[in-house]
């Protein structure tokens, strides 16, 4: 069973509906005792990094998630949920994240190195480029288009955590992973067939109870 962490942020309905379509059982709750019974966790989220961390702290979910990861159980962060897995973000004032992955979220500058101005947020369908095509998360997926919507982008020097990237006036980490911690910057639940396959792949890892990258 998959536990979807409800912390009042984000479109939980579409994530849970996507799991229903895949016939994956889930529980959607903020109650960590209930979540503890799950085999894998999803941390969804839209909204601001600062607010999200505050709510996670208020609801005493931070320690729970940290213990979960330390126990080697699978965790999938989606969109803001992915950014929360990193060291921190400059959104609404510098805020510390969960710290599972090295990197920091920065506002898209809106101007490229060649001084071309571009739209922020990065909104719409962009193409995946695989960095680790053999990774279990990418099973049965081709380098197709997925749906992004975000104004802050992860900056990281740790190339080994990049499973797939997209190009938006520079490299955008699209799927990241380190052992049992996985994140997607885009919304798999809104990314048509590829997104559904990704969720299915995560479901498979959860069912098999194995650590990612092992």
């Amino acid at each position, binding site marked *: 069973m998959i536990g979807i962490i409800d912390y009042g942020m984000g*479109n939980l*309905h*579409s994530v849970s*509906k*996507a799991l*229903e*379509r895949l016939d994956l059982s889930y529980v959607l709750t903020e109650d960590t005792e209930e979540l503890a019974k799950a085999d894998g966790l999803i941390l969804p989220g*839209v*909204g*601001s990094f600062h607010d999200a961390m505050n709510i996670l702290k208020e609801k005493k979910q931070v320690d729970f998630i940290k213990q979960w990861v330390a126990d080697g159980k699978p965790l999938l962060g989606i969109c803001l949920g992915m950014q929360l897995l990193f060291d921190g973000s400059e959104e609404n004032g510098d805020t510390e994240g969960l710290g599972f992955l090295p990197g920091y979220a920065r506002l898209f500058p*809106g101007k490229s190195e060649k001084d071309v*101005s571009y*739209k*922020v*947020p*990065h*909104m*719409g*369908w*962009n*193409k995946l480029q695989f960095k680790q095509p053999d990774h279990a998360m990418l099973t049965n997926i081709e380098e*197709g*288009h997925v*749906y*992004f*919507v*975000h*104004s802050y982008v992860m900056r990281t020097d740790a190339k080994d955590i990049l499973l797939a990237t997209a*190009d*938006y006036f520079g490299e955008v980490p699209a799927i990241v992973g380190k052992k049992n911690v996985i994140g997607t910057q885009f*919304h798999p*639940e*809104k*990314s*048509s*067939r590829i*997104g*559904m396959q990704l969720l299915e792949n995560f479901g498979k890892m959860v069912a098999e109870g194995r650590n990612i990258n092992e």
Partner: protein
Amino acid sequence: MITKRIIPCLDVKEGRVVKGVQFVGLRDAGDPVELSTFYDEQGADELVFLDISASHEGRKTMVEVVKEVAGTLAIPFTVGGGIHSVDDMRTILRAGADKVSLNTAAVKRPELIREGADYFGVQCMVVAIDAKYDEELGSWRIYTHGGRTPTDWEVTDWAKEVVRRGAGEILLTSMDQDGAKNGFDMGLTETVNNAVSVPVIASGGAGAKEDFVDVFEKTRADAALAASIFHYKETSVEEVKKYLREKGVRVR
């Protein structure tokens, strides 16, 4: 790189799609769920639902429609019409919509955009702008109430204002071109694109697949929205995207 989006728009009244959709092979052409699945399969990148219900019951029905659509659709969708408060936004977003679109309510009380953006994030906040060229103004004037009521706002001023207040995207409809079927309004679309840094959806005037190539080649529009051209099968989403691809416009 990011692709250009093609967005069919569905008008929903009391839970039913109106404007006489003419599809063969659909069991129920007025069913929003069935139609949205059809467009999804055709390769639509997003959908917009405009609730034109006049009654309170109609609005409630819309929430049920949103829930059903969210349960079947694996692409993003926006809901507009009848959203006047943060509570209205919450109801629609919690039902499963990805974005809400404000129009008249934003002009009446622009703070509403910021209230929504603070709560749900700018990516959820679309502001729909209906604009019509005004000789006296020498530019485009903003209208509300489905294009019936003129305002004092000039289009670039208003576009900048809504972005400053937290709009993450602008759905820009040319009232001059709407229904004319001879192409999008390039002047209006580019004017607004030059004024703001958020994505702009061009709307009003699509009459043929060539119009979509035009708007993406001649303006910086990020997406193009159309209704009747798709509903009446004058062309299809599939055909439009194939044509865009042939012409070198990046699409999914």
